[in-house]
């Protein structure tokens, strides 16, 4: 029986259960297919917002923007996350997968939902954006497709929890689960809240679209939808932070600086990360300032603190491991000697820096009720989430994929020279997208707007500064760079799966998992490895940037209304 057979990877020693391995492959391949589709739509969106190019007409723009958002924010990422959940449970705990038939049923529902959604959206009857705010109405199959996808993903989450039970009852591990698995538990918990919230609002909206429910309250829709829409991005945060810890262990043999601190930070995510959804409602009149401030500031800052803990401990654990292995000189020898030509590392590290500096800091600015007013519903918002979700999550998942192809699929990576550069291309392009969208947003350019020149609006005009047009042009150019990077990733991965040298049971020449750093190595040189001065300097640079940017925004706000 496939569910009780295991393969031991000759390069990593990891035990792959037969059913888990097939499901990992299926979910990972589906993820890359939807990334390819969504990335192509992203190119069309970027070239349309570049005013000098203005590629698509208004109808097509909103249709393609809807498809872009759903493919890359939902389908690519959640397929990959289900693969991570199965990897973090069955593979890392060395046990069989619970109920593989249910896992396949969940996968089938996700595929049906994602394909149906793409077909319905591209028929042009559901150009309602990813948010699909009621009373704007899409085709009933639009809502049904999302419900099917969500049910499939929920099944995947419960297969993950079932696998944790299997591992515990079959005693395949002792003590606590590994930190990476704990991070995956965090992601799965957030996923359950997210998907249940989606069901609470999408089911009645589906019934409304077929005429069985009279009306949907627009305020309530927005509130519940954001519990689904924003929290789905918080699943990503928990998942990609787990992958950061995994890559630190895989490439450097690093152990976390403090298991307790890292686990407590994940626990903060479990408690407080989802409520950040409220920052989308900061100008909604239906909810009080108490609700807004508590959810977006007081409590949410505890989740922000958790992210800063991870942002310190992941590079800190790498530094400690590198110092323990002899790279002790100066502040940054450990970083200089890191494998920058290995896309697994470069992708992960660019993601970490981009997520913190571009995504993290701007997220806090948007979460403060007062300064949020400067950028609410402008292009700043997509600028922020392209830093968190694309530079943060997508690039991390890309980095992990370079490791999974040989280990899981037993195929050698093709085009290794291109693979070496791919994270830089994609990271640079997407950082540009993020920065220039935020620049345009700061100048007041609205998000989701086909034409800021207001052509064909019957006399409705507003003159944006010339710099806004420049920002959109620079964004378009950055999109092209990022799409080349994204296309390179798809070519390398799909090409490796189809044409890469089959590895079978033979061990590769390169080392694919570092030997864990021992207590003796950490204790050498008087235990100086734990001092991590380089990471502390990086953290200080981060804090100074954070404080400066935060207060600059308050200054901007103060200049908005003159006091006379």
């Amino acid at each position: 029986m496939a569910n009780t057979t295991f393969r031991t990877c000759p390069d990593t020693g990891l035990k792959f259960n037969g059913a888990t391995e097939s499901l990992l492959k299926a979910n990972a391949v589906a993820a890359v297919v939807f990334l390819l589709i969504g990335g192509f739509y992203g190119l069309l969106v970027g070239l349309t917002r570049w005013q000098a190019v203005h590629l698509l007409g208004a109808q097509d723009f909103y249709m393609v923007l809807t498809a872009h958002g759903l493919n890359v924010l939902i389908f690519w990422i959640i397929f990959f996350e289900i693969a991570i959940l199965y990897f973090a449970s069955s593979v890392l705990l060395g046990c069989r997968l619970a109920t593989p038939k249910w896992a396949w049923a969940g996968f089938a529902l996700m595929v049906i939902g994602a394909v149906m959604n793409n077909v319905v959206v591209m028929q042009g009857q559901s150009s309602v954006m990813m948010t699909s705010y009621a009373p704007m109405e899409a085709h009933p199959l639009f809502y049904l497709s999302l419900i099917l996808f969500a049910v499939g993903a929920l099944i995947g989450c419960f297969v993950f929890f079932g696998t944790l039970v299997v591992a515990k009852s079959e005693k395949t591990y002792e003590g606590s689960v590994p930190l990476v698995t704990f991070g995956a538990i965090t992601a799965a918990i957030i996923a359950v809240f997210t998907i249940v919230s989606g069901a609470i609002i999408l089911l009645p909206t589906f019934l409304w679209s077929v005429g069985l429910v009279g009306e949907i309250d627009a305020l309530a829709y927005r509130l519940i939808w954001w519990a689904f829409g924003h929290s789905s991005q918080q699943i990503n945060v928990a998942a990609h932070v787990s992958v950061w810890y995994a890559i630190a262990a895989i490439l450097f043999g690093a152990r976390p600086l403090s298991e307790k601190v890292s686990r407590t930070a994940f626990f903060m995510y479990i408690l407080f990360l989802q409520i950040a959804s409220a920052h989308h409602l900061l100008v909604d009149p239906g909810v009080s300032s108490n609700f807004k401030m508590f959810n977006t500031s007081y409590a949410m800052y505890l989740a922000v603190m958790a992210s800063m803990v991870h942002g310190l401990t992941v590079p800190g654990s790498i530094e400690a491991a590198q110092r323990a292995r002899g790279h002790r000189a100066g502040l940054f020898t450990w970083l200089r000697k890191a494998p920058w030509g290995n896309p697994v590392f470069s992708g992960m590290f660019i993601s970490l820096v981009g997520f913190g500096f571009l995504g993290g800091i701007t997220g806090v600015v948007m979460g403060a009720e007062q300064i949020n007013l400067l950028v609410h519903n402008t292009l700043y918002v997509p600028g922020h989430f392209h830093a968190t979700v694309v530079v943060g999550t997508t690039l991390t998942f890309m980095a992990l994929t370079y490791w999974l192809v040989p280990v899981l699929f037993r195929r050698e990576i093709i085009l290794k020279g291109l693979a070496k550069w791919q994270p830089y291309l994609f990271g640079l392009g997407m950082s540009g997208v993020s920065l220039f969208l935020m620049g345009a947003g700061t100048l007041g350019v609205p998000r989701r707007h086909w034409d800021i020149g207001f052509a064909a609006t019957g006399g409705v005009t507003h003159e944006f500064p010339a710099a806004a047009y420049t920002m959109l042009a620079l964004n378009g150019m950055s999109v092209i760079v990022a799409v080349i990077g994204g296309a390179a990733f798809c070519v390398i991965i799909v090409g490796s799966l189809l044409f890469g040298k089959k590895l079978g049971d033979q061990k590769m020449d390169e080392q694919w998992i570092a030997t864990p750093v021992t207590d003796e190595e950490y204790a050498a040189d008087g235990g100086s490895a734990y001092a991590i001065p380089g990471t502390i300097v990086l953290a200080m640079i981060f804090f100074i940037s954070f404080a400066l940017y935060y207060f600059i925004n308050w200054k901007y706000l103060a200049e908005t209304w003159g006091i006379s």
Partner: protein
Amino acid sequence: MQDPIEESEQIPMMQKLLDNPFLLLFIGVATPALLYLVWGLAEIFTIPVR
């Protein structure tokens, strides 16, 4: 040899919590449900109609 009951008592409360995924699941769903969904909906549905 240590008594198993005594041994389990030595595990700190916080670690027991973090080692229980189903308790974490309950907390992780209930907390945002109360702070965000229930609180927010209560405010929206108590807005006077006129």
